[in-house]
């Protein structure tokens, strides 16, 4: 009985691992931001911020104007101290406008070791990437 259990769990773990290995990051929803400047190092899963979900509820101006989020993934130095002081995510995730910050797993839901980035962005999806410098002068004739 014990042996059967062990075999079952090994199988389960192995199949979960194969399934995870074959998931493709390029399937992420357009505009999802992974924030991982500090999380991995602190032993937390990275944060996934869904733009699509928030823009159904708020205009860009609320976050990128009133709350001071700069247009740069990972570029705001956001950490938990700022959040509990009511800055950035903490301006809304305070149990008043939206559920509050003790729900760690709702924000820290990312796959460990995923770097900070904006998902499915045009530059990420280009089959032939644009190299900085190679085509910044469209009139000067590019290599093709």
């Amino acid at each position, binding site marked *: 009985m014990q042996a059967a259990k062990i075999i079952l769990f090994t199988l*389960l773990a192995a199949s979960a691992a194969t*399934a995870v290995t074959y998931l493709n990051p390029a399937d992420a929803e357009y505009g999802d931001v992974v924030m991982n400047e500090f999380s991995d190092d602190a032993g937390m899963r990275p944060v996934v911020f869904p733009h699509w979900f928030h823009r159904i509820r708020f205009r860009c101006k609320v976050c*990128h104007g009133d709350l001071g989020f700069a247009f740069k993934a990972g570029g705001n130095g956001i950490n938990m101290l700022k959040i509990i002081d009511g800055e950035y995510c903490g301006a809304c995730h305070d149990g008043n406008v939206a559920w509050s910050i003790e729900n760690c797993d709702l924000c820290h839901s990312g796959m460990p070791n995923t770097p900070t980035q904006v998902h499915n962005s045009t530059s990420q999806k280009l089959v032939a990437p644009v190299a900085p410098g190679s085509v910044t002068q469209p009139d000067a004739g590019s290599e093709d």
Partner: protein
Amino acid sequence: MTSLAKKAGFVGFIALFVAASMFAAMRYAEAQSNPNSFNRLLKPASERNAPPATDGIHDPTSDGTALLQTPLEAFDPLAKSNSGNYVNWNQALDDGGIAPWYSVSNPNAAPIVLDMNIVREVKGSMPNVVYPHKQHTEWLDCANCHPAIFIPMKGANQISMASILLGEKCGVCHGKVAFPVSECRRCHSQPKEAAARQ
């Protein structure tokens, strides 16, 4: 008795899970190993708007991931488009499909909308670019663009497709959060003849 039934259910569940993930892995392996698969680089439509647990950036083993909303559920009632989130966000705004707040706390605050088009003439065959302040100021503040991204003076900014693809100028937003660069005609919307007639 109940514990036996529970065990049987558990074993059944595991068997199903193992079978399902092996099947997924095999299909993926097949697509990867066939050098002449029809689309080598293009992603199939069935993989669009994936639920968080299978989108590759959420951890499917996290309890939090299971609680998140699936994009398709939210997008179902909204106006559609051909790329990005596959939602036409401006149409959704105009037809009342969504009513996003313009303030953190006041649902009734109204945006300050500026109705002013800027036409940018394009060399070559592509139609001219019409930049509409209206659709932008419904979402954004003047200070989101002026002066950091664009000097507020017609023609004062050098813009090219290369810089947009690299994430500068219009590409700060288009290709990241606003509709992507693949939708040429939404920006290149003024035929050359119309410009000549003016």
